[in-house]
């Protein structure tokens, strides 16, 4: 019995090892983009992230454009719209198995992390020429394509930055001007908060780790912190980063946001609170416009946008950063069998004409030079966002560990917010301990 068990185990192991090795070598050499060339017409698969009001809406927006592309080039595009909760996992699974789409959308903050996997086609100078050349793109956006000094593995598609939305009427009623310093913002927020009426100074997505890490970065930079040092090692616990996280968590500790919002995820709750007058301010990327109008019933004339202010005077080493360069990039899967068609498609999607068409329904900033901001008819809003992108934005760290940074630090900050929301004080030591733990987890991730 025993010897038989061992024998069968050995056989099994042998089978499995051959399977595993066979699998991996094949993976390395050949590869299978799911595209196919049949009967002269080429088909490529495109994974689009969910940018519109629903997956259905995305299909309606992109459908006609893809038809147009097919007419121009004869390349048929098989579209799949993937919701944000699934997107990164699906990309990872595709990366691991070598079986993925030809072209796909990625959150631009993942660019360096995904680049490190080696599963994506580097845009060398030839490939860049095929999509219209490097100079076609806005510099800040193009820089998010991958780690500095390497051929990028993605090019920008939709541009996004943070802005501070404020409710004009609420500010006017309280005799306030939109804040220009963080201190002013806090004073205003306190004045506008009235919990008995369910009204708060600020809306927040306290359950969303991506929001939390974005603000940890933005405020960390304002306070002179930097999440990674020059060699790419995490430095989450430096005083600047701790102070930055504190600045964000204080919104909750000082009770200017609704405690319930620690459960808000990347859903519609926070923008809806703002749109319905339950919060006077909202720090959000420019695609919030969609939600405010579609879901909250807010008219564009009812809100204004300014840059998120920094503390005044700036703490030592701090910079007046109001956003990171957010947005969606386009990548080509290295295993694609239709590289030319894929490049054509990237070129098409990033052409000024398509940008002008798509930026509107997706409320995105153009990523090509000389594009005009057309998602809003309000000149001041367009100007505020363009100004933030041009002068007050830094890319999130372009290091392979960026994705792990997002989840670990984001979740640490979420935990601190939850602590503050349930009435427990959050001390500097708490913040440091939480960030230290996040940093320890990174050690394994890289």
């Amino acid at each position, binding site marked *: 019995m025993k010897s038989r068990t061992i024998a069968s185990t050995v056989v099994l192991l042998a089978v499995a090892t051959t399977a595993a090795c066979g699998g991996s070598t094949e993976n390395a050499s050949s590869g299978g983009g799911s595209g196919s060339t049949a009967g002269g017409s080429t088909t490529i698969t495109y994974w689009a992230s969910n940018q519109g009001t629903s997956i259905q809406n995305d299909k309606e927006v992109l459908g006609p454009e893809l038809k147009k592309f097919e007419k121009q080039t004869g390349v048929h595009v098989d579209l799949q719209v993937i919701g944000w909760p699934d997107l990164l996992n699906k990309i990872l699974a595709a990366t691991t*198995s070598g079986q993925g789409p030809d072209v796909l959308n990625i959150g631009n903050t993942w660019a360096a992390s995904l680049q490190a996997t080696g599963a994506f086609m580097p845009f060398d100078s030839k490939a860049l020429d095929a999509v219209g050349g490097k100079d076609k793109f806005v510099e800040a956006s193009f820089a998010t394509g991958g780690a500095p000094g390497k051929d990028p593995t993605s090019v920008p598609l939709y541009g996004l930055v943070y802005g501070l939305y404020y409710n004009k009427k609420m500010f006017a009623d309280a005799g306030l001007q939109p804040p220009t310093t963080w201190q002013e913002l806090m004073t205003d927020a306190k004045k506008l908060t009235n919990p008995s009426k369910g009204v708060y100074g600020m809306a927040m997505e306290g359950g969303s780790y991506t929001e939390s890490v974005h603000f940890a970065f933005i405020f960390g930079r304002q306070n002179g912190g930097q999440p990674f040092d020059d060699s790419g090692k995490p430095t989450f616990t430096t005083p600047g980063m701790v102070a930055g996280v504190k600045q964000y968590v204080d919104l909750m500790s000082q009770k200017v946001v609704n405690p319930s919002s620690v459960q808000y995820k990347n859903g519609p709750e926070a923008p809806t609170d703002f749109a319905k007058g339950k919060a006077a301010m909202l720090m959000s990327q420019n695609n919030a416009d969609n939600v405010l109008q579609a879901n909250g019933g807010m008219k564009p004339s009812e809100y204004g946008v300014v840059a998120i202010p920094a503390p005044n005077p700036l703490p030592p080493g701090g910079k007046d950063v109001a956003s990171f360069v957010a947005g969606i990039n386009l990548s080509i899967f290295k295993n694609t069998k239709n590289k030319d068609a894929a490049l054509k498609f990237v070129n098409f999607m990033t052409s000024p004409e398509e940008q002008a068409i798509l930026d509107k329904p997706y409320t995105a900033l153009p990523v090509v030079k000389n594009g005009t901001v057309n998602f809003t008819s309000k000149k001041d809003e367009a100007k505020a966002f363009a100004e933030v992108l041009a002068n007050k934005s830094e890319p999130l760290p372009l290091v392979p560990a960026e994705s792990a940074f997002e989840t670990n630090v984001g979740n640490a900050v979420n935990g601190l917010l939850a602590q503050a929301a349930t009435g427990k004080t959050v001390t500097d030591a708490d913040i440091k301990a939480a960030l230290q733990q996040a940093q320890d987890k990174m050690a394994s991730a890289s």
Partner: protein
Amino acid sequence: MHEQRSFKVFRWVTIIFLGAFTLVPLYVMVTSALKPLGDVQGAFHWWPTHPTLRPFVDIWSTVPLARYFVNSLIVCTVSTVLSVVIAIFAAYAVSRYRFRGRRLFTGTVLSTQMFPGILFLLPLFLIFVNIDKTLGFTLLYQTRVGLTITYMTFSLPFSIWMLASYLDGIPRDLDEAARVDGTSAMGALFRIVLPAARPGVIAVAVYSFMTSWGEILFASQMTNDSTKTLSIGLQSYSTQINVYWNQVMAASLVVSVPVVIGFLLLQKYLVAGLTSGAVK
């Protein structure tokens, strides 16, 4: 029959408590499905003040619910049927034969019930992709076929185990007699043993169906837009722009009704199957 007083009290306390515990979420589900979106997003009210059937109309257009429903039905039904057939064969062998490797087989099969899904999710994905590559066309990767094959194994260990015990309970004189009369092994299995084992087979089938019906982890990685199953598809009602609580509830109700009815119709077999399978 006479019952002690304290037992009567116990009985009614239990029924009221468990009844409320079970019923309240179901009640919330039904009433929320009848409320307009504004009402479900506002403060909770026990009674729908503006009852509407609108969510039941909207569910079909917000999300391709019908497609997900069909996918789920296909995947779960096919995997159930096939896995029950395979389990019957294996259980018959285990129950009626003594063969080399029998213990190894039963032991291994049973231990696979313990595998954490997360351990073999990624390797399985990889194997599927490589099989497809070898074949030259997409057979398993994010297809209903791939998911069906995966689900077939999920309930297999328990199904074999339960059916084997069930078959043990059926006197072997029956099939031996048939064998003496010249029936083949398969003939004995299908004509004699299976009819006698019907409750056990139905119990296993229901269990198998329910297991795949609610599976989330593998479905989330091994499907795409057109092959998505319900357990994943229902999540699409919470979008970036809105969480359509009333539609989630309405859709849950709509897709549950046939399954709940089927389950309740079969429950008497299920009880009988479980009884003989597990008790004897």
